[in-house]
């Protein structure tokens, strides 16, 4: 029965579509998010403003965000990726910012006293020590992105959201349960990869 659903709903292909969207979005999110964090770390006034704006975007229901992009980006793949990015930049940017600014004073003082320039301190001290926190932010971004991409199925973006929608329209319990459980399992697996990365970075760069 599971195999039946798998074949008829083409879950294999959908899974690949789904994960590719997540992956592409993540690459962009990580790049932009960390860049924002780095850009803001020594610009306190600007950081308050930017982080607040991102915070507001966070409170908007994901579906609403997705849908509001439709007049500008149409349906399918494009608004889904953009919505994922908008939604998930905050955890990465914020964690990067916090990680970079909240390095223990003694390390910053030693670095300055040794004759390191601000940029050198950023690259050799702040960023390495911020990595565990950044990883935690990326992990959250992964969860958010999985969610938005799932919703993308509702606006013809492909991915596993589609079969769920089909299941609901047809009121086919099997499709819903199997696809739903599969999404759940996939999400937990992806999250645990994120968690593993976070733990490794914590061991290497954490200092508690």
């Amino acid at each position: 029965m599971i195999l039946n659903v798998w074949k008829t709903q083409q879950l294999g292909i959908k899974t690949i579509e789904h994960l590719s969207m997540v992956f592409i979005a993540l690459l962009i999110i990580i790049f932009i998010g960390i860049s924002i964090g780095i850009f803001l770390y020594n610009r306190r006034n600007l950081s308050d403003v930017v982080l607040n704006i991102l915070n507001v975007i966070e409170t908007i229901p994901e579906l609403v965000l997705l849908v509001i992009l439709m007049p500008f980006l149409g349906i399918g793949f494009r608004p889904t990726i953009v919505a994922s990015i908008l939604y998930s930049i905050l955890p990465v940017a914020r964690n990067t910012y916090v990680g970079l600014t909240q390095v223990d004073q003694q390390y910053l003082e030693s670095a300055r006293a040794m004759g390191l320039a601000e940029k050198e301190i950023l690259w050799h001290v702040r960023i390495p020590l911020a990595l565990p926190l950044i990883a935690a932010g990326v992990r959250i971004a992964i969860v958010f992105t999985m969610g938005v991409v799932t919703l993308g199925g509702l606006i013809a973006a492909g991915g596993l959201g589609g079969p769920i929608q089909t299941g609901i329209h047809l009121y086919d319990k099997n499709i819903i349960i199997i696809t739903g459980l599969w999404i759940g399992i996939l999400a937990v697996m992806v999250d645990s990869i994120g968690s593993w990365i976070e733990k490794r970075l914590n061991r290497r760069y954490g200092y508690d």
Partner: protein
Amino acid sequence: MIDINIILNAVGEHLFLAYSALFISIILAIPLAILSLYNRYLASVLLVLANLVQAIPSFAVVAIVVPLLGIGFKPAIFAIILRIILPLFKNTFTGLKDVDFIYIDSARGIGLNKMEILRHIRFPHAFPAIFAGIKFSAVIANSVAILTSLIGAGGLGELIFEGLTNFNIPKVLTGAIPAMIIAILLDVSFSLIEKRISLEN
């Protein structure tokens, strides 16, 4: 084309759905957190569950509720509760638990029993965490309430979904824009309350 009454109706349904779920979740989460303070097994099970469930997309959670409980208001509320009860629990639990041992010790020294310690020391300490948990859950409840329209719970989501099926973008927006406004108002009011509380402290 756009009837204000329909929109207001939808807003009402939406708010009712989201906040009933929030209310029920708070009532359930707090006792659970208190119980977990004294039962390590319960605490670890719930914490693991909380972390696991949070990773699952809301859409999947909402969908799975259908084969189990059918469609309509009750399954919708159940789905929202499922989604928000664990973060509420986690925040409350951590807030109650992570009180500096010094305070607990001196309280015991003065002769307070567990209940009194709970009331006079743990709870006040946990307020910020509980508040943060409620804020977080309110936002999620708001989001999930939109999705539950897919399973027939009415509300703003319904406008959005109807619009989507008919490729009627304006209709979609009549649902989406109010939802966005509610979300922003939510965030602003919570921030104001937060400031009020921290000023009082």
